[in-house]
């Protein structure tokens, strides 16, 4: 009988190697062996994606690889999540994410969303060219802890300052994170947002730190 850690490592490797078939087969095996699906997801699948995030950060993996790994991750999750008892569903924070008004670039945002889901966060993706009013609406509807906004052009980035104000007026307690090619830590501060992540590779760490810093639960 295979040991837990051995199987978890194999699953993690399958994700890193973007081997969808293998991820699926191993996920099934973990269920047959009676392992806790929540633990399998955490130590096998998520662990694998975190390695992927690191490889992406170091530019050894690029966008195509990350997305293929995400496919492998999804196959594993498809097998495991139906077996998780309702009460054990993630207590982690809720995040509303989207690409801002006037901007249609979303690949970066999509990868960030992936990483956040891997990290166990409850993510609501509004898509692209999202009006700031929609961010406010969705934040209130889902009781979000964090609103994440992305922009790829300096022109659309300019609108974020007003967006941050709108969101704060509606909910002063929410944490706001900004990201995208033209953003920098200084601009994020200037716009009055709380957090910034330079690349998808570090977003889990940055989000965790932000929540801790703000003293919020669910991190």
């Amino acid at each position, binding site marked *: 009988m295979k040991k837990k850690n051995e199987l978890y490592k194999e699953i993690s490797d399958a994700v890193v190697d973007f081997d969808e078939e293998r991820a699926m087969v191993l996920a099934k095996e973990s269920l047959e062996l009676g392992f806790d699906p929540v633990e399998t997801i955490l130590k096998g699948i998520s662990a694998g994606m975190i390695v992927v995030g690191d490889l992406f950060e170091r*530019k050894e993996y690029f*966008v*195509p690889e990350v997305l293929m790994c995400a496919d492998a991750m999804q196959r594993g999750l498809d097998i495991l999540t139906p077996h998780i008892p309702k009460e054990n569903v993630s207590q982690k924070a809720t995040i509303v994410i989207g690409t801002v*008004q006037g901007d249609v670039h*979303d*690949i970066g945002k999509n990868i960030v969303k992936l990483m956040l889901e891997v990290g166990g966060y409850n993510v609501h993706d509004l898509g692209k060219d999202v009006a700031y009013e929609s961010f406010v609406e969705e934040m209130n509807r889902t009781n979000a802890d964090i609103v994440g906004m992305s922009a790829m*052009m300096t022109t659309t980035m*300019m*609108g974020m300052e007003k967006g941050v104000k709108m969101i704060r007026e509606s909910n002063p307690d929410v944490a706001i994170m900004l990201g995208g090619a*033209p953003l920098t830590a200084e601009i994020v501060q200037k716009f009055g947002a709380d957090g910034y992540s330079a690349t998808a590779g570090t977003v889990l760490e940055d989000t965790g730190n932000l929540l801790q810093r703000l003293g919020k639960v669910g991190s």
Partner: protein
Amino acid sequence: MKMKKAKIIFQPCGRRGKVPTGISIVEASRIVGADVEALCGEKKVCGKCKVHIEEGTFQKLGVTSSLRHVSPWQEEEEKFISPEERMQGYRLGCCAKIWGDLLVFVPEQSRVGKQVVSKAARDIPISHNPAIMSYYVQLCPPTIEDSTADFQRLYDALKKEFGLKDLRIDVQTLRGLSLVLRQGNWNVTVSVWMDREIVRVRPGKEERCYGLAVDIGTTTVVGHFCDLKTMKLLNTVSFMNPQCRYGEDVMSRITYHMTTEGGLARMSQALIDGLNHMVEEGLSGMRVDGDVSSEKGEECVPLSGGDIEDMTIVCNTVMHHILLKINPEYVGSSPFPPAVAQSLDVKAHDLGIHIHPSAYVHMLPIEAGFVGADNVGVLIEEEPYKSEEIQLIIDIGTNGELVIGNKDKLISSSCATGPALEGAQLKFGMRAAPGAIERIKIDFSTHDVDYKVIGRDAWRGYSQAEEIKAKGICGSGILDVFAELYRCGIIRKSGAFNREEKSNRFRKNAETMELEFVIAWAQETSIKKDIVITQNDIRQVQLAKGAVYCGCKLMMRHLGIDKVDRVKIAGAFGNHVDREKALIMGLFPDCEINRIVPIGNAAGDGARIALLNREKRKEADWVCRHVEYLELTLEKDFQDEFVKAMQIPHMVDAFPHLEGLVSEEILHQ
């Protein structure tokens, strides 16, 4: 004690870096490879290092620059910098020491090594039918019996002799009319625009008639001076768009307008000043009925701006709006609508361009927010709407436009290639200028590198290290190296460096921890640093080339075809691209090598055609409304196709025409 460092960026070349505080701007320019002229060797006596210190925060560049970030004024500077210039922010690079972050603009005359611009005109057949026609008339002077007004007299004569009806005249030309008529003893040469308006009246019989066709690129502007009678190209002048200091790309210029009071006017004026300077320079070098090549002893006719009677301009939408001081803000966000798309005729006088004040400047029409008049210029020049064969036209400059189709249907789209394919934003990327590595070859077995630098005929293989003085890599060099690294197995299909690579050129940078490959060793350079390609550089090029390929593929799918008959590559880049390398890197879908054609600066040629043939202006008006614009990001599998196209040459698509060019094991890895 830790040395304090400051960030310095030089425009227009874009070279930048962190330098120790306390050194002079000239010294800093050496360190980062910007090379400000210093004839006297920083002895403060030649005044050739005059530079402009920009004031303000430049978000895209990540720098806040100010005159307060340099050491105080020195006496020696007074000799070379006037009080007005001093107020405007000019300093001598040898006297100004760096105290804080700076954005420095180096005017043309202070630059060492003029940028090599190849937007040369091509020899193409053009039908002669310019917008300006000139007529010689002999009038009867006024008498007691016939005291008809001067203009009426002229009007009637032109109507009677040449059938020209309802001719108008503007107040500027009217002001000089009476005197000119009498100077010519009632015999005058009249220049008529579009058979509708008199723009110029000259005494006597004048044969000569000139026009100017301009291509305003985001980075480079080119003007073609033409003889409107003989259609001969008399001179071509190019210069760097002075707006570069406000932003390297169109988005950052829009942002500058959005965040800076008077920013739009400033950018517009900078460009207009550049155009006027170009007019002066272009005319001073002109021969009578000359060739572009100059020969000593040939008679040079003194001409002035007022001798240019017609002008056409092609440019992208943002350049168009900024020139005309039209608000470009909304072009910068989805759905990217231009403020105006049809062609325009604007008086030179209204724009402040120093050609004949009554002359009309014809702005070609725009297709869409990111497919501008420049693309229209390419279309009227290449005429894909008249051809049976299906053509794919790729125009890569600072922006990238694609057109595909034939006489049955044409589609266009814009892909954000960004400046990566021109060399910008890459660690050692630079614009094409002396010292830039423009051609690279890597030996398949040894993985040694041979290269050629602009301004030097001999390749590295035939040179002593110290003679080469490489400074960086320009666009065509980037293309070459990308394709070569892949072909030799140094980078994999995914773009990642092959960890097994044995060459000592492959290494991990001790400071950045990033993988890199050395192209030129420090002793072969003028910047005394190894010139490398980093893993990040490779990723940047993958993004750019993926965008182009994806655009091509989605458009082909839209047309329902899976291959094209001809691939035409345009843009300043187009002349320098090695078509084999372009195919190897997967810039566009698989195609027979000899069906890939560089077409040089087709946009500029298009401007020239519109200048010399008014029917082409009508054609331009028609074609821009008949090309279907495809917004790529709205295609449902845009992300999927974009991602697949990032691999080399592609994640899944076959490239049968690469068999033989790329080894079996690499092509099918």
